[in-house]
């Protein structure tokens, strides 16, 4: 465990050192490639005057609400398409089609419908999450070995009980990977929306990134990008990784 931590830290320290050396070599102007030190300076000052925290809070709140809504709607719809031929042919096909639409394409529509409001942001995030979640859930349920439901039926399980005690837990590994994918899509669509649109109700990380470009403040651009990466990593490591570890242990799919 310690060895793995050490290897990872060494790797990232190495990257920073390479970055530093490239800056020192003056190949590019410092306006285009700021040194790690100035990026760190920006992050420190933005943290001190509160803009960074505020932007992070706004972004994460939008993300959580939008993602939550996406799951709340997408999971049941996915179960529905998996259990009924009719829903498969209607909602299933709709989801398959809209999933191919890059989520940033929803931004113009969201702006016209909702104006420059939080609702527009949430709409984009939900649209980015929902369709892929429906498809992942549907796939997950359909790959459950039929022997499980037969065994359950033989033991007297029916209807809702079968769904909650057999279908959902059996599909859990697939549901989780669907939720992970949904999370990634939600994150991407929110960033796209924030970069494109300034909204008066809140100034998110994407907006901060956008203004970094407007002001030609490369240290801000890279600093905010780093923050976005770190949030993504942190969510994966704290939210999804423990559930994944549990599933691997139970199902015996652990890699040695």
């Amino acid at each position, binding site marked *: 465990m310690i060895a793995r931590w050490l290897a990872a830290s060494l790797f990232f320290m190495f990257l920073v050192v390479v970055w530093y050396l490239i800056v020192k070599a003056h190949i590019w102007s410092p306006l285009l490639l700021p040194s790690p030190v100035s990026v760190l300076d920006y992050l420190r000052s933005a943290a001190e005057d509160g803009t960074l925290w505020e932007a992070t809070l706004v972004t994460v709140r939008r993300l959580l609400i939008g993602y939550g809504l996406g799951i709340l709607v997408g999971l049941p719809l996915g179960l529905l398409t998996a259990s009924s031929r009719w829903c498969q042919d209607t909602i299933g096909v709709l989801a398959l089609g809209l999933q191919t639409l890059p989520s940033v394409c929803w931004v113009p529509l969201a702006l016209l419908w909702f104006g420059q409001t939080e609702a527009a942001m949430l709409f984009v995030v939900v649209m980015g999450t929902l369709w892929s979640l429906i498809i992942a859930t549907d796939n997950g349920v359909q790959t459950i070995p039929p022997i499980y439901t*037969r065994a359950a*039926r*033989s033991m*007297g399980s029916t209807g809702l009980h079968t769904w909650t*005690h057999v279908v959902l837990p*059996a599909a859990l590994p697939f549901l989780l990977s669907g939720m992970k994918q949904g999370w990634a899509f939600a994150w991407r669509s929110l960033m796209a929306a924030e970069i494109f649109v300034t909204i008066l109700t809140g100034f998110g990380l994407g907006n901060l990134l956008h203004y970094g470009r407007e002001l030609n403040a490369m240290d801000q651009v890279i600093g905010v990008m780093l923050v976005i990466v770190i949030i993504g990593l942190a969510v994966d490591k704290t939210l999804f990784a423990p559930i994944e570890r549990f599933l691997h242990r139970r*199902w015996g799919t652990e890699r040695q």
Partner: protein
Amino acid sequence: MSDPTPANTVSSKLVLEHVSKWFRTSSQTVHALDDVTLRIAEGEFVCLVGPSGCGKSTLLNIIAGLERPDRGLVQADGETIVGPGPHRLVMFQEASLFPWLTVLGNVLFGLNAVECREKAEYFLELVGLKRFMHSNVHELSGGMKQRVALARALAPNPSVLLMDEPFGALDALTREQLYGDIQRIWSQHRKTIVFVTHNVREAVCLGDRVILFSPHPGRIREEFAIPLPRPRDINSVDLARYATDITHVLKGYVQAEVAG
């Protein structure tokens, strides 16, 4: 309570009369069962034997209530079977244990909240796996998994136990142990057992009666009573003699079919 009695003389636990079943796909229709009539007495151990495709598993599913016959009558305790129920539990051939539950959780599945834990532990003890009750399913060997499946099927106290080639995937040594276990459990708990297998020796070792099926369409060809004393050893000479006779008859049907 008397000794295991031949069918017909007492009221039958399971009655099948003129049962037929077809499976239709878009390209063809398969005649799975043709006019099967069978009576099974309370507490009887009946083995259904035949080559693959003879409809014996289909018959088991019909008794379980997981499938409906297209024609004929199927009754348990004098009542027509319309669906699955906890009085007739199936133990499947493949791993049908739920990997998201522990061993104990699997055995608890068919039990309601009141009966619970004590009962599950009792049946795990019965199959010799109590100390593995908190293990995950994938940590068990194939034989242990089928033992858990047996405990899971026994725990809700079904009067009929339906076993669909439960030991098919196991090695010979493990199977022999399980023959011993199943005979011991059967003599203690006196379930009515319908056991599907394509292994004649296994059928002779376990059954009071061996029912021989032939395929295309699946129908009953012959019935053999096995009056050997219990517990039976699969390697005994008497048992081998019965098995040889039945295998001989079975081969006759298979060859007749190949010959057209």
